[in-house]
């Protein structure tokens, strides 16, 4: 017989701080199911009015990049400064870019 799992599975929590902004990773928590994960996230991460919307994702469902491949994945971007939009003059009237 399969050994009963003692701990609830881990969930990653994403909070949208206000309408129009993106959900940002806030942390993680344990919960038995998705409903409980949302309730826990509400209690743990929005009790000081941090959010207007919550996403939860099972941590085991996340696919992460391999730290061992860091060199080939990220280092090629290092010498390509021209990809930063810093070569334009931004008019004063433009507040948010």
């Amino acid at each position: 017989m399969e050994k009963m799992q003692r701990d609830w599975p881990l969930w990653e929590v994403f909070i949208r701080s206000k309408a129009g902004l993106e959900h940002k990773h806030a942390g993680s928590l344990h919960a038995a199911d998705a409903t409980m994960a949302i309730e826990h996230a509400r209690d743990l991460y929005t009790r000081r009015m941090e959010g207007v919307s919550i996403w939860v994702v099972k941590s085991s469902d996340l696919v992460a990049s391999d730290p061992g491949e860091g060199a080939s994945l990220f280092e090629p971007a290092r010498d390509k400064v021209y990809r930063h939009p810093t070569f334009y003059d931004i008019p004063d009237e433009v507040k948010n870019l």
Partner: protein
Amino acid sequence: MSAALQSAAAAAPTLRQAQFDYLLRLGDTSLVLAQRLGEWVGHAPALEEDLGLANVALDLLGQARLLLSYAGELEGCGRNEDALAFLRDVPEFRNHALVEQPNGDFGFTIVRQFLIDSFQRELYAALAQSTDERLAGIAAKALKETEYHWRFSSRWLVRLGDGTVESNERVQRALSELWSYTNEFFAEDPVDRALAQARIAPSLASLETRWRAVIEPVITEATLSIPRERGKLTAGKRGMHGEALGYLLAELQFLQRAYPGAQW
């Protein structure tokens, strides 16, 4: 003075007295339950539940503060929320006996919470329409919080009831033990009648029908059953309490009793 005016003058303090009593019932129920839930801090089965219960406790404490402040103003004897919370003894408390019952295990706490959340949700929904505007405002705020408390406790009741054999047995035992404490919710007395007549509070009979309609599907989903026997009738709202409340108040009130007037 005409006879009509005289009788109006005599009736006025009675309604005021009833209002004061009624506000104590609401405020004390929230205060005592907040204290009970606070006892879970550091002891809940998971860190996440620890915070969940503490959040509910803080919501209830906030409600108690608003209600007791208002009660003190209505009474007009200079007692503020602190005087009412910290300087009254057991027989002066008006909370429902249900909420003073010791926590027991997590399942027992959830059943107690489920029974009071469902009642408060229906009650505050009705009180939000009260002719007493200040009470209606407090109720509207409390209703939003109570909706969440109800969601929390009813989901947990289903998880435990429809969980393992042991969790089912434990919550069924708790439901059988706590069920009779709900009789008091709907036992109408002169205070309830005076407030219903003044359209400040709903009639308890109408509330009971709505309450039953709300809890029965959840209890069924949790594969639990409501005891056939209605059982004893407690009267916490008239100041009759068990010894458990004395210990609770001893802890709640210790600081103000030992160091009168102490401030942060």
